[in-house]
């Protein structure tokens, strides 16, 4: 890496894009939201509400009910009643019809939902509109199709639902994670008590409206809002048959400890520190795009983000130059602006955590690069960041930062790349970039991660199972594998 760069491109052009914002009015928000239990919106027993704010303006968007133990108990009771009384007895094709109906209403209200998601969570409208919402609808459509075909999914075996599923979801893809959890649970005949993250409850509450509109039998889906203690009440409730959690590894470990000794089923989808491996024979300009999508998608608040870049030494200089140039064109700012590429960091706490890592990385001796993009005055912002010359032992290469921060390392041989990629406590995803098919198969087979993308990154589809190894959790969501997480599967003739 000795050659000096001389011919720099400049992207701070005279021709700038004027703001092109969606109107926040499109979110059509209420002043306050209650808990959704047994098909109705009900006030919290303790009478407590908390504010949900916009991370891009710090304005309060709405008051949201805080569910305590008693509310969770009500929700579980409603879910149990619905499970025993209607949902598990319903013809599977009828369950499918409800899911199709929910999917269609989501599509009809997708603009409202996208704007709400960007307001409440800070992600750019381009992503909530073009990625989150289409995926949300497709998850419901996909699982609607499975509802009456489960015997085909598990040929030669018998399946039955588990009962009441307690589900806890994170703030990075609020509505999409709700869809990932609710759709398979319902398709397989379970009922649900779900808790959205306290910083992003609004789209889940709109989903409650949609569920009402779709006339789903009361109690099949219950949505309880609140913070950690609400989640804990779900996990500890004795009448819950299964816990599905997506979130931090730390909380995941806690949940697993809590469930030890119980017969509750558990799936965990936790953190990650994925390596994106770029070989010298890769199509570099397209690899750069994949690296950008891998780490700057959703401000890097992605558990499967490609937060480590492993680049072959022979092309490191060229690739980093191209990456820096591409970063120079990224627009950071108002999540509702259609031209925004990187929105607001989801919360002040998360911003603080990311900023902490920026200090750590520099202290460890990695070379920091940030673009000189302008940032709005109010709100939580972090410019896209590279750490060059990171080493395997740096904390920025080992720990999940969950922000738009990429640790760049080099390697010389295929084996070294594989070793470095796997040398992490996590194992959620990985990326391989090469023009050689044989190398792509060789490397991707050896990356210990639930998803490995080749010559692309961060591609999601409801038909494709998603989940981790090691500290990234266990269990799969999506595809036939994802159904299994909500079913008792027994050999034909065997006992349950």
């Amino acid at each position, binding site marked *: 890496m000795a050659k000096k760069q001389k011919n720099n491109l400049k992207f701070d052009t005279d021709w700038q894009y004027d703001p092109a914002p969606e109107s926040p009015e499109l979110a059509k928000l209420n002043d306050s939201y209650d808990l959704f239990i047994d098909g109705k919106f009900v006030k919290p027993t303790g009478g407590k509400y908390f504010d949900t704010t916009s991370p891009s303006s710090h304005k309060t968007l709405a008051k949201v009910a805080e569910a305590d133990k008693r509310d969770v108990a009500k929700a579980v009771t409603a879910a149990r009643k619905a499970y025993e009384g209607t949902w598990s007895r319903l013809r599977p094709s009828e369950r499918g019809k409800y899911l199709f109906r929910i999917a269609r209403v989501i599509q009809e209200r997708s603009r409202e939902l996208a704007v709400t998601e960007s307001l409440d969570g800070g992600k750019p409208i381009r992503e909530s509109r073009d990625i989150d919402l289409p995926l949300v609808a497709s998850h419901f459509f996909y699982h609607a199709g499975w509802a009456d075909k489960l015997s085909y999914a598990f040929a030669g075996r018998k399946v039955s639902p588990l009962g009441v599923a307690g589900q806890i979801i994170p703030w990075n893809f609020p509505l999409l994670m709700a869809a990932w959890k609710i759709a398979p649970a319902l398709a397989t005949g379970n009922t649900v008590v779900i808790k959205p993250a306290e910083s992003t409850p609004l789209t889940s509450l709109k989903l409650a409206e949609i569920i009402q509109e779709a006339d789903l039998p009361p109690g099949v889906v219950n949505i309880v809002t609140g913070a950690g203690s609400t989640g804990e009440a779900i996990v500890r409730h004795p009448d819950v048959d299964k816990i599905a959690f997506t979130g931090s590894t730390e909380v995941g470990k806690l949940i697993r400890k809590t469930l030890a000794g119980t017969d509750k089923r558990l799936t965990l989808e936790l953190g990650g520190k994925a390596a994106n491996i770029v070989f010298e024979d*890769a199509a570099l300009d*397209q690899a750069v795009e994949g690296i950008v999508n891998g780490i700057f998608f959703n401000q890097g608040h992605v558990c499967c983000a490609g937060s480590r870049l492993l680049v072959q030494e022979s092309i490191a200089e060229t690739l980093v130059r191209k990456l820096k140039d591409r970063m120079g064109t990224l627009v950071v700012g108002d999540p509702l602006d259609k031209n925004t590429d990187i929105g607001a960091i989801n919360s002040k706490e998360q911003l603080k955590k990311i900023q902490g890592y920026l200090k750590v990385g520099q202290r460890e001796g990695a070379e920091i690069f940030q673009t000189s993009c302008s940032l709005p005055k109010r709100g939580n912002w972090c410019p896209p960041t590279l750490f060059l010359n990171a080493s395997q032992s740096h904390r920025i290469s080992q720990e999940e930062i969950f922000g738009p921060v990429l640790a760049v390392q080099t390697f010389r041989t295929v084996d070294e790349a594989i070793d470095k990629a796997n040398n992490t406590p996590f194992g959620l995803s990985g990326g391989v970039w090469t023009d050689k098919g044989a190398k792509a198969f060789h490397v991707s087979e050896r990356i210990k991660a639930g998803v490995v993308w080749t010559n692309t990154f961060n591609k999601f589809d409801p038909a494709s199972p998603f989940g981790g190894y090691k500290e990234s959790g266990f269990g799969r969501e999506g595809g036939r594998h994802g159904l299994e997480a909500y079913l008792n599967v027994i050999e034909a003739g065997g006992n349950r």
Partner: protein
Amino acid sequence: MSLSATLANSPPIDSVGVAERVARFTTRSIKKSSKMEALKLALSMIDLTTLEGKDTEDRVRRLCYKARHLHVDLPELPTVAAVCVYPTMVKVAREELKDCGVQVAAVATSFPSGQDDLSLRIRQTKGAVRDGAQEIDMVISRGRFLAGDYQYVSDEIVAVKEACGEAHLKVILETGELQTLENVRKASDIAIDAGADFIKTSTGKVQPAATMEVTLVMLEAIRDHFQETGKIVGMKPAGGISNSKIAIRYLVMLRETLGNRWLTPDLFRFGASSLANDLLMQIVKQSSGVYQSSNYFSLD
């Protein structure tokens, strides 16, 4: 750079990735003053083109008049960059356009097929330059390229460049015949190393003509050569860019691929005939708030 080095350096291209990058450009929302600026910039980058067997001197004169006087009610407008004609029309065009800054471009080298003896193609080039063409749009021998005779393609470009003298050379790759994006990249690399001042997608006589995918691959070739060697080469997508919306998307792609320096008619051109009127119509709409009938914009 030797041809073997050029070919060895030509990178693989992933067409799926290219299509995804292009899709990102098309989601940029260009409104208000940024739209007005883009419309005017696009107008100034047009090579107003007539390349038909039925062209007459009168037709070329009318086109040149239009190039100089785009719209009577909008005096602040830029002019187009050039008028692009067959070699036989160069004299007439030059006469009409003298002293007004609009360049005369001639398609030479047995446009559009290039299927002719190289000596004839060079003689045609020299003739066009002698008649006053300031820019030469040549075609490469696609048959030779597809047969793997890259040396021939490289040599013909070098020879035509020499015949051009002071005139600027645009090398038409005819990407619609090259089939793959990797071929487009390879042809771009060969053309740039052989001395092209501009690389150009298409003749307009073959479908598909310019596409955003092909143009992106060519822009990235230009970027790589600039960053490796400092050489500055221009880009001209031609054919199929028929309205303002498409043109603005190309400008977004240009801005985000090559940046500030290339946002000028000196380094980027649109080869188009109907684009100018649509841009004018949009400019009027931006300033007056209403669309005028197409009858208010002259046909020439």
